């Protein structure tokens, strides 16, 4: 069932197995684009008009004022110059609101909904897709290779499969894809995740997915061109008012209902601490339940929705330095959008590619068993199974007392919480522990034990002897930790190298990785000791195992 798919096998299949054309709904996206937008617009406007009669926070006046207020605040804090004209437009709306008739408010609501719908909507250009899927992997491969000659460079063009390893029950994911709509839900560590995942899907013969990409990623015209033409829709995370969130959710719901495979990062943003996601954003996730319910109400019994948990595991993370700085800085904890990290610097990206991703097994994409919108595991036939493996009909979760499918938003919100817990369990179970992370955890445990604290702000002040660990002690502790992990499957899986190679070799490789890419080495071997040079980065990599209990603690 859950088998390791070697890179070479995947590479082999890449050439021979075409993308599942029948399930690539995105090829028909442009033809349906206007219809989709009209549908989203109608649903959102109708829902708001229906609720408006309740008055108070539901009144159109309140809704429109919230939009105007949020937009003014956003523009006023914008670093860009001359947003004055735009600010004036929103101030004008705010001033007019009190004098507006209900029909004028309605017209304004309709107009704003159109405006945001158009801002969000994506595009899919099959020609760009063919180009990207044919050309990008080899180019990426070339970029990511430590080549010293053109001959090696040409060889690298065909070796992309070596860089990204695929693991997990890929056959079950393909089976789910044939039976319903996929919602791919990966962990999120880096802006490279979407590229790596797109490549992973391609290597598995899975169709491309549509996804909401942060608007800040569209600032680079080159990346923006590909994103906009490969099905990505734009999510402006600066817009926090309800109308925008509802349009976004409805857009996602309609796409799922129409069979467009989608990608959400349920963590919402990259994990700053490098811990596996501990809390998920429920907004977009909830659209999986809503879309399934809408399908059933429309009589589309076959309109199943399958969530596909995925962990993306990097030996080193491109943006680690910025992310952990941000996590540790008190003010940084609230910084949601980072637009000045390593991802925006092409030189750092290429350096990362050549020094880190170029090495075999530097990135592992591990698929989890698909689950239904109620958190139940899905078997190879696309059927839901409860925790004891019994067949369960997902329709039954949505029926009311009379056996009819009903809309109950509170109930669906709870199901989404259940789903998020199920996804997090899957993330833990399917996290692949890489040598760098295991070594970081062991070093952290040793240093914290001697210091008598795990408080990172205290550990950051340690120097000298306090941050040195004898190599022999490190190797012994790594050996014990890997034994502990291999006997506790629910907490994660060990990377193949940790099982196949002797501990000193694995430790040596981890130390080499740690000294290779970051502006400052994380740790360095000196004499027969390991010296910690960057406690912050050590903490960052150790955090991937934060859910693993300390030695001797149950």
């Amino acid at each position, binding site marked *: 069932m859950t088998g390791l798919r070697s890179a070479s096998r995947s590479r082999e299949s890449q050439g021979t197995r075409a993308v599942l054309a029948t399930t690539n709904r995105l090829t028909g996206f442009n033809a349906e684009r206007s219809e989709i937008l009209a549908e989203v617009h109608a649903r959102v406007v109708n829902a708001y008009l229906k609720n408006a009669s309740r008055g108070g926070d539901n009144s159109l006046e309140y809704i429109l004022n919230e939009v105007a207020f949020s937009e003014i605040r956003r523009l006023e804090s914008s670093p860009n110059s001359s947003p004055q004209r735009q600010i004036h437009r929103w101030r004008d709306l705010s001033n007019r609101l009190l004098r507006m008739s209900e029909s004028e408010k309605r017209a304004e609501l309709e107009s704003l909904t159109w405006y945001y719908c158009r801002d969000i909507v994506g595009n899919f250009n099959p020609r760009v897709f063919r180009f990207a899927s044919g050309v990008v992997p080899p180019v990426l491969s070339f970029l990511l290779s430590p080549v010293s000659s053109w001959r090696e460079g040409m060889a690298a063009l065909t070796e992309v499969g070596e860089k990204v390893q695929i693991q997990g029950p890929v056959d079950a994911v393909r089976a789910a894809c044939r039976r319903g709509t996929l919602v791919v839900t990966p962990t999120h560590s880096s802006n490279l995740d979407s590229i790596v995942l797109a490549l992973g899907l391609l290597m598995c013969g899975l169709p491309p997915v549509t996804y909401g990409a942060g608007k800040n990623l569209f600032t680079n015209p080159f990346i923006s061109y590909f994103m906009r033409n490969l099905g990505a829709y734009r999510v402006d995370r600066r817009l926090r008012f309800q109308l925008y969130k509802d349009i976004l959710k409805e857009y996602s719901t309609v796409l799922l209902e129409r069979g467009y495979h989608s990608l959400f990062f349920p963590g919402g943003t990259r994990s700053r601490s490098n811990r596996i996601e501990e809390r998920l954003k429920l907004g977009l996730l909830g659209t999986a339940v809503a879309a399934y319910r809408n399908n059933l109400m429309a009589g589309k019994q076959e309109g199943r929705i399958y969530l596909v948990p995925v962990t993306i595991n990097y030996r080193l993370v491109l943006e680690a330095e910025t992310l952990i700085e941000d996590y540790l800085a008190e003010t940084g904890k609230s910084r949601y959008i980072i637009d000045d990290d390593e991802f925006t610097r092409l030189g750092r990206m290429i350096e990362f590619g050549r020094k880190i991703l170029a090495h075999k097994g530097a990135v592992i994409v591990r698929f989890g068993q698909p689950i239904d919108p*109620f*958190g*139940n595991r899905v078997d190879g036939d696309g059927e839901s199974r*409860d*925790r*004891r493996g*019994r067949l*369960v*009909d*997902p*329709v*039954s*979760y949505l*029926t009311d*007392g*009379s*056996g009819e499918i009903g809309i*109950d938003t*509170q*109930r669906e919100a*709870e*199901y989404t*919480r*259940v789903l998020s817990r199920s996804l997090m369990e899957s993330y833990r179970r399917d996290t692949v522990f890489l040598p760098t992370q295991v070594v970081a955890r062991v070093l952290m445990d040793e240093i914290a034990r001697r210091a008598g604290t795990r408080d990172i702000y205290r550990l950051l002040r340690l120097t000298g002897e306090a941050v040195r660990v004898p190599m022999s002690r490190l190797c012994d502790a790594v050996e014990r930790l890997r034994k502990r992990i291999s006997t506790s499957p629910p907490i994660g899986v060990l990377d193949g190298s940790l099982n196949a190679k002797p501990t000193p070799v694995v430790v040596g490789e981890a130390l080499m990785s740690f000294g290779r890419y970051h502006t400052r080495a994380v740790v360095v071997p000196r004499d027969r000791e390991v010296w910690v040079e960057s406690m912050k980065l050590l903490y960052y990599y150790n955090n991937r195992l934060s859910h693993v209990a300390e030695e001797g603690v149950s």
Partner: protein
Amino acid sequence: MRQNKVAIVGAGRFGLALAHRIASAGRAVVVWSQKTAVVEEINRDHRCSRLPDVAFAPSLSATGDPEELARDARFIVVAVSAAAVRERVRQLGEVINGSHMLVHALGVLVSPGDIRVSRILAEETPALRVGALAGPALWSDLLAGSFASLVVASHFDEVTREGRRLLGVPPALRVYRGSDLAGVELAAALAGAFTVAVGMSDGLGMGPGPRSVLITRALAEAARLGDAYGAEARTFTGLAGLGNLLVRAQSEQWRDYRLGLALARGETPDGPEMASEGAQAAFAAVRLAERHSVRVPVLHAVSAVLAGRLEPAKAANAIADTVAAEE
């Protein structure tokens, strides 16, 4: 019909008394018992030897077939012993689906892992719409039609709505709703442990003043533990917490209270008394408190006396919380 019928798993005194109260309001109730004699007795005579003085209403029936139960009713109350709960719920899981609503009426944390019963419901069945029923509704009050109250707690509004509609028989049985499922389950379990403590205090003749101090400090530590557990502090002063404690800590009818009295006399019961739900809850709660690093002097003292590590007479000193300066 199916949505108006209540199913009760277990034909113990509480389950039967609850079924009787609901059926006496004309509502259909079906009780699942594994004992054929009990099923036949109820269906044939409308009586049960477990509650010999009661004549059940005709709308109360019994079955030995869980499939029939699942077919006939969507709202199911699990009222079996802690020892039997996982097995019975597992059997139920074979016949129910996601449309069923399951609430339990057990005031315990279950070993191994000291887990809440609602988690067992979710683990052993496909049902997700689960909840808990707790409060000072004694089986004797339910039979007598006295003013009894229960709280039905669930994360699903739909479950609490249905619980109130199907179980409430005001004024004889008033059902309140709550969303703090973890709090209600923990409060109900802790009430048993604290009943042992109050029994000890009464057995030692401590008087009403120390008794009141004991109860208020117990509630304070329950709220602290609840807070660390993700529950709401006010749940512990509600029906499931204080309500449950007050009703139990006054009568030798209750095993937990009797256990406290016996401990105060210097007896070390090692039979069924020791296995009382309150005793088990005390041990479980201490483990839970250690995991969450919460101070629980009352529970520590109760478990120490139960384990024979502390004399009951010295427990009062141990309970006096020397760390807390503020209430």
